[in-house]
């Protein structure tokens, strides 16, 4: 702290050509700054982990309820219903089924990421101590806990039934999930309207439709020979997703609340 303050002061003093810089000046200024800081009203504030825990009540409770519902669906689809005995749900259909399910998993986050804009809370939230990037990061983190759990359970349930390797199962789940996440992070970053949720939902349903159409018209996409491409696309989507999260977190800092804004 003192080191940072010292270097900042030195830089500032260098810009003042008519001031003589000396160690004594620095020490005196730092002492005055310290006194000024101490004289301010001391406020006890919670740290980030405490904030994260308190947000579970407001975000986690609802999103996890959605995710528990999906978890039950996963058990029903992948475990309880014996896929092999139903001709239309033979294990060969698993890749597309996994893909569609992964998109539904991603969709559980839609009502929570952009809700500040949807319900006109952004302005009031932006003026609070916790910054919007921190708040968004917290929401993403809470949602991701459930998503990771769902993806893992789906993976474990399907693993035994699949005709293909564990890596392939993981990719069939991951790629559609990552594409869905990338898609609506893009929408969140560039669409500042109350219809973000609707646009994101439409995007996800379009993605599901695309997966089904591909399965019908180009089944080669789901064959083991294409698994390398799935892997490559997963890495690419992972990178895009990280950039998307970074941009989403960075965006509200310079958000311009124009007359057409919030």
């Amino acid at each position: 702290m003192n080191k940072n303050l010292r270097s900042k002061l030195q830089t500032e003093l260098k810009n003042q050509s008519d001031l003589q810089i000396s160690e004594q000046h620095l020490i005196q200024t730092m002492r005055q700054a310290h006194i000024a800081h101490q004289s301010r009203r001391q406020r006890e504030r919670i740290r980030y982990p405490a904030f994260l825990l308190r947000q579970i009540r407001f975000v986690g409770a609802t999103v996890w309820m959605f995710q528990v519902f999906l978890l039950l669906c996963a058990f029903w689809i992948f475990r309880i219903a014996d896929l092999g005995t139903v001709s239309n749900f033979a294990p060969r259909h698993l890749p597309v089924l996994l893909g569609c399910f992964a998109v539904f998993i991603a969709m559980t986050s839609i009502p929570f990421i952009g809700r500040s804009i949807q319900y006109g809370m952004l302005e009031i939230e932006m003026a609070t101590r916790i910054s919007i990037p921190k708040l968004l990061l917290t929401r993403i983190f809470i949602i991701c806990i459930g998503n990771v759990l769902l993806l893992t359970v789906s993976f474990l349930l399907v693993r035994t039934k699949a005709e293909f390797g564990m890596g392939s199962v993981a990719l069939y789940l991951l790629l559609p999930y990552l594409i869905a996440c990338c898609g609506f992070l893009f929408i969140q970053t560039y669409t500042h309207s109350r219809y973000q949720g609707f646009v994101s939902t439409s995007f996800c349903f379009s993605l599901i439709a695309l997966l089904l159409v591909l399965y019908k018209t180009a089944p080669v996409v789901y064959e083991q020979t294409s698994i390398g491409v799935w892997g490559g696309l997963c890495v690419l989507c992972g990178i895009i997703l990280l950039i998307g999260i970074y941009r989403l977190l960075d965006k509200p800092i310079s958000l311009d609340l124009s007359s057409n804004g919030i």
Partner: protein
Amino acid sequence: MELTIQELTKRFKGKTAVNNVSLTLTTGVWGLLGANGAGKTTLMRMVAGILTPTSGKIQYDGIDIKTLGEAYRDIFGYLPQTFGFYPEFTVTDYLQYMASLKGLPKKETNQKIDDLLHQLTLTDVRNKHIRKLSGGMQRRVGIAQALLNDPDILVLDEPTSGLDPGERIRFRNIISEFAQQRIVLISTHIVSDVEYIANRNAIMKDGKIIAVETTDELVKMMDGKVWQGTIPTEQLHHYERTIRIVTVRNEDGGSVSVRYLSENQILPNSQPTVPRLEDLYLWLFRGEEAVKEEEV
């Protein structure tokens, strides 16, 4: 404690909402008066740090609020003009949520919420969903959240819209009590809101601050320009087109008592009367109707 606004300008596409505004806010209640579209909300948003100025800067005790960042937001309370809430929130949920965003420790939060609910007479509805409350009650919840962190700087944008007269008086008392050793900036076009509690007022028109004075000094500017007279009812229509009438009151015997603004006496037998801040507002904002207390 001082909040300095220096040559602040904000331009939107093709429109200058705030034009080179400079203002130094010291402790006490400040009224920011202006007609709709004068630039009050844009100025408020820049003071709140949620809107980036096109040029100029805002400093709190000599330090740019951008540099202060979290430390500034920590001592800041804000009620925006449009008050949003999540539909599943009860009053308590909402205040708990806002307290967490303001970083308040849990034990302090509960005590503070109880106090504010009591002060703003919301205790009975603490477990009700906000969406089921009346507009006035929702506004009071908004005021409560702004006060949660005991802010040094409190910015309220149209805080009394939707409040009934009794609630507005209670609000004024709370703010007057709260404002000691703090900066409170209230933006409004309801003149009576700030007339009795503001230490100083800034009047904004077309994105510029056109006057900064105490209420008494501002009212003094209207000395000799406010008149009271009585005319026959049938002449009212004629005079309404030629002079700026503030209030009309029916009298016995087919006449009306008229309060009007003019540099000179126009109605026969009319007398100069004691001006109010509302008169100045109407004088400055020709053609722009002030929201009169009885209309709210």
